Each structure stands twice: as structure tokens, then as C-alpha cells.
């Protein structure tokens, strides 16, 4: 079996250059590639385009990359929780493209699946539809949306094997599987890396074909944005 294993996050991100287009998995802070983000912060990068559902918070996730002024453009569906983001956006340092969440997910899926464009009802009659082709199918209007692809996709999984097969946990799956397929080079970080053959092939979410490099991450913080609990 092809071995995709590399040593650590530092080695994983060493070929990422300034002005690259990156996809980063996660929804909020759930399922984000923490180790790769930390390693990127150690590199003198600028002008990155980041495709990610959210933009982290001020002191965690993509928020840390914003603080280092590495990001030129964010492509997201919701960017609410970040003051530095707001400052850079209002000052014109940062460009942002907001996309309906389902359209974002499908554009990434299309990118990985070789579908250059598709029609969706989301955004018809709104600002999102301005300048886009509209077509009627069976009496309803749809927008033409194009695929998204990236130079590098950084994804996070729960378990992975040396062949690059991935299994996610809970709602940490979110955008990770589609991004894994839509990156020219996909880097997977996992909480537990096992030899090929140890994961049940029936349970694999992302087949290893999409993954170029895999490494065992460390010191996962898994920060919680809204800790809500009940008493009993």
C-alpha cells in the first residue's frame, strides 16, 4: 500500500507558498486543522486566499492567520466571530466573498468531483445571483454556480491510516471530506494514525486517493465556542 505518512505539521506545510489558494476544513472551531494552522504561522507567508466556512475567532483557528496578515481573501459563508477580521475588512486590507453555505459545500464537492458548474435555487433573486446565469427548470429558477478548487487542502480527521484513509468524528466532519477531494495537494492531520489495514474499510469516510500527505497531530486543543450544558 502507498505510504502517505510524513513526520509532522512543519513538514506538511513547507511547500505552501505565498499567494496560494488554501481550503481549510471545519465548521466554527469544530474539525479545524489546528496543527497545520500553527505550522503556517511559523512561515513568512502573505497573500493567501483561504476557503473555509468560517474565519476562526480572534485568538484561534484562521483568526491567528489573519492576525499575522497572511490572508488576502476569505471565501466563507459566515464570518461573525472575529474582531480583527472586521477591522481588516473595514480598512480594506482583507477581501471577503460570502457564499451561501450549501452552495459553498457543493462548489467544493463539484471541484473534487470534476463537475465545473451546477444549478442551485439558493440565492435566486438576491445579491448572490447578480451577474450569474439564471435558468428555469420545471417552472423554478436556478443559479449557475462554478466549482471551487485549491492548491492545498488542509483537513482534520479523527483517525487515519498510512494509506491516507480517513474517519471523522461527530460534526467535525463538515467540510473536510469535500475539501480533501478538491485540493491539488491535500494534507490530512489526524488524532490517531494507524498502519494501513487497521481501519475497517466499511467505515472509511474519505478514501486515501484524495490524500497526498498524512501525519499524526498533537496537543489538540479543540476549543469550544459556545459551551452550553444542562444541569442534570
Amino acid at each position, binding site marked *: 500500500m502507498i505510504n502517505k505518512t510524513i513526520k509532522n505539521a512543519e513538514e506538511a506545510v513547507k511547500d505552501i507558498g505565498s499567494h496560494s489558494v488554501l481550503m481549510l476544513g471545519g*465548521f*466554527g*472551531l*469544530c*474539525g479545524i486543522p489546528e496543527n497545520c494552522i500553527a505550522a503556517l504561522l511559523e512561515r513568512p507567508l502573505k497573500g493567501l486566499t483561504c476557503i473555509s*466556512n468560517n474565519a476562526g475567532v480572534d485568538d484561534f483557528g484562521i483568526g491567528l492567520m489573519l492576525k499575522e496578515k497572511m490572508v488576502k481573501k476569505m471565501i*466563507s*459563508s*459566515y*464570518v*461573525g466571530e472575529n474582531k480583527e477580521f*472586521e477591522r481588516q*475588512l*473595514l480598512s480594506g486590507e482583507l477581501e471577503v466573498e*460570502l457564499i*451561501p*453555505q*450549501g*452552495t*459553498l*459545500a*457543493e462548489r*467544493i*464537492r463539484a471541484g473534487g468531483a470534476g463537475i465545473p458548474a451546477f444549478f*442551485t*435555487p*439558493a*440565492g*435566486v*433573486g*438576491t*445579491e*448572490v445571483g447578480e451577474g450569474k446565469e439564471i435558468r428555469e427548470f420545471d417552472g423554478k429558477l436556478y443559479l449557475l454556480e462554478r466549482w471551487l478548487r485549491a492548491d492545498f487542502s488542509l483537513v482534520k480527521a*479523527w483517525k487515519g491510516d498510512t494509506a491516507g484513509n480517513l474517519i471523522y*468524528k*461527530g*460534526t*467535525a*466532519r*463538515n*467540510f*473536510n*471530506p*469535500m475539501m480533501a477531494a478538491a485540493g491539488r495537494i491535500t494534507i490530512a492531520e489526524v488524532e490517531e494514525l494507524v498502519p494501513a489495514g487497521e481501519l475497517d474499510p466499511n467505515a472509511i*469516510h474519505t478514501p486515501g486517493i484524495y490524500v497526498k500527505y498524512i501525519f499524526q497531530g498533537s496537543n489538540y486543543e*479543540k*476549543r*469550544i*465556542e*459556545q*459551551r*452550553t*450544558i*444542562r*444541569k*442534570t
Partner: protein
Amino acid sequence: MLSKEKIAQRIAKEIKNGQYINLGIGIPTLVANYIPDELEVVLQSENGLLGIGSFPTEDQVDADLINAGKQTISMVKGSALFDSAESFGMIRGGHVHLTILGAMEVSENGDISNWKIPGKMVKGMGGAMDLVSAARQIIVAMQHCSNEGKSKLLKECRLPITGVKCVRKIVTDLAVLEILPEGGFKLIERAPGVSASTIQEKTEGKLIIPSEVPEMEFE
């Protein structure tokens, strides 16, 4: 005038057995607290879960299990997890029966605005545009008027819209209203102690008042 909890409680009466339901952030999330025990329904979270349970206890908290509002949650028995493309596939595909969400404005033909205020920091639409473009039934939960006292039930939306001709029912702190296919808000129920003329005063769009408009009933 109804509290947010009472609005949620009234909306819960719209829920039918066997439905798959997506609840938005804010008042819609509270609806989950009032779903009658005898109904079997499944709550969908667009970040990849069918079967949202209650908030976890301290020792059940799992950072890998959150709802679309980024709150920690639990799963009910029989839950299913999936990725975001699958999640919006089931939304756009019309498999989710009911979407309940908040709004800044609704127009008399069913347009909704809830994502952007010009001049203010725009946070994004999240999944709202996908949800309103495809759910079979959309109920809006909101205050009848803004904090400044301006009607939010309008002839036409003034804010950038989220979706066109998609809202069918609205529950506010004053009333339950239906949007008629030919346009206009039909008054279905009044909040206890609120008169139809008060509702008329606070509704800018076309309001249709039947001869008999009952008060909302709560158990």
C-alpha cells in the same frame, strides 16, 4: 405581547408527527423545548447531524459535537452524521419538511430579509439562503416591530433579501399570520389581549382581517 418563549411555544403547535425540521438560531432554537412528547420528529443541524438532542451535561460535553450555532449538543438515539454537502443536499432536495427561522423583514408576497444590513458589518448568510430556497414549509419567528417601533411586515422588503416568495407563515409577539398565494398577510390568531386594530396599526403590508380572529391558546 408574547415573550420569545411564548412565540416558540406557539410555533411548536405547527409541528406534525414524522417531520424532519431545521431550527434557526434565536427564537427558533427555543421551539425544541415545546415539541410535545408524543410527537416523533427529527431535528436537523446543517453542519451535519440528524437527531439533535438536549444540551449535554458537564461530563458529556464533546467538542466534536456542536449545532449550527456552535453550541455543544448531544445526539438522540437513531441519529445520523454526515458532511456539509450531504446536509445541504437533503435541504435543497426537499427532504427537510419544515424550516423555522428568524427574520429582520418579511414582505406581503413572502420575501424574507435576514442576513445583511447596509452600513453594518456583514457576517454572512450561513445556510439561510439554501434553506429558504428549498424547504417545503418555512415559518418565520420574529418580533412584529423593530426596536425602533417600525413594522417588520412590509409591502416590500427594504433590506437585501435572503429569498423570494418563500415564507408561508409568521408567528410574532402579536399575531399568527399566513401569507396568501396572491399576496397579503392573513391574520389567523391574535396574541392574548391584542386587538386586530393594534395588529393593523403595526403592519405596514396588506393585512387581511377575517370577521372572526381567535386568540392564541396555550396549555
